């Protein structure tokens, strides 16, 4: 029982807010285009892992991985970024997936905030046990 609840909930809040940040970045870049497939924006997602294996504790982020989906290729010869064949490459962000991610992340964040406020109240009550 190494970690306190504040550490645990705090780590979860950090992880979820990182997830919200990557989602915001993905949605913001959903319609960015580029001239080559390599430069196209790829959706990024954090990978969560438990801090301690087989033990209770908080969450850590192992890293951020880029989605491997193929970027969308469009034929737009008039576009200033179009390559020699007249193609541009859009991002591989899936808007629906990102919206679902956003809702899930904000809900998880909320649960952790509520958890902290509940525990805070309990601790205050325990501190005041001797009174009255």
């Amino acid at each position, binding site marked *: 029982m190494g970690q306190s609840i504040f550490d645990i*909930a705090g780590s979860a809040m950090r992880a979820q807010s990182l997830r919200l940040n990557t989602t915001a970045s993905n949605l913001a870049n959903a319609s960015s285009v580029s001239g080559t497939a390599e430069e196209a924006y790829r959706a990024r997602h954090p990978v969560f892992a438990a801090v301690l294996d087989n033990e*209770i504790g908080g*969450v850590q982020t192992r890293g951020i991985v880029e989605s491997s989906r193929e970027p969308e290729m469009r034929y737009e010869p008039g576009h200033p970024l179009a390559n020699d064949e007249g193609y541009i490459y859009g991002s591989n962000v899936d808007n629906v997936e990102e919206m679902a991610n956003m809702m899930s992340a904000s809900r998880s964040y909320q649960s952790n905030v509520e958890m902290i406020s509940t525990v805070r109240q309990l601790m205050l009550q325990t501190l005041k046990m001797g009174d009255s």
Partner: protein
Amino acid sequence: MIDDYLATHANSIKLRAQRTTVLASNIANADTPNYKARDMAFAEVLRDAGGASKFPAKKISLSTSNGSSAGMRITNNRHIAGYQSAGASAPLMYRQPDEASLDGNTVDKDMEQARFAENSVRYQASLEFIKSRVSGLIRALRSE
């Protein structure tokens, strides 16, 4: 003995606080792949810790993660049913998931939140019981 007078709720409060950490960990890891939800068998752990000191401490075998189990065994009927205070390591068990999830996570967020709420209400209840017992004791001691 004042220990006996407060024992049940003192132990209960200690275990409730531990369980809060366990449930907090479950909720915090609700989106972590391969995380397995944990919990303790509260009634058994409390009984093992001698929380219900009116009854003889019965040895209950739990399928713990490390194979050990808390509590003292009575091997002779002249043994006093002692109780140990709720130890630092209440045995944790894995929750049986209601439905399988693709990423190997067994946390049911809604259920965990309900349990968290229940646990904190019961913590408060024990706190109130201790409060009223202490104030009752003080009233009895005063020569008014």
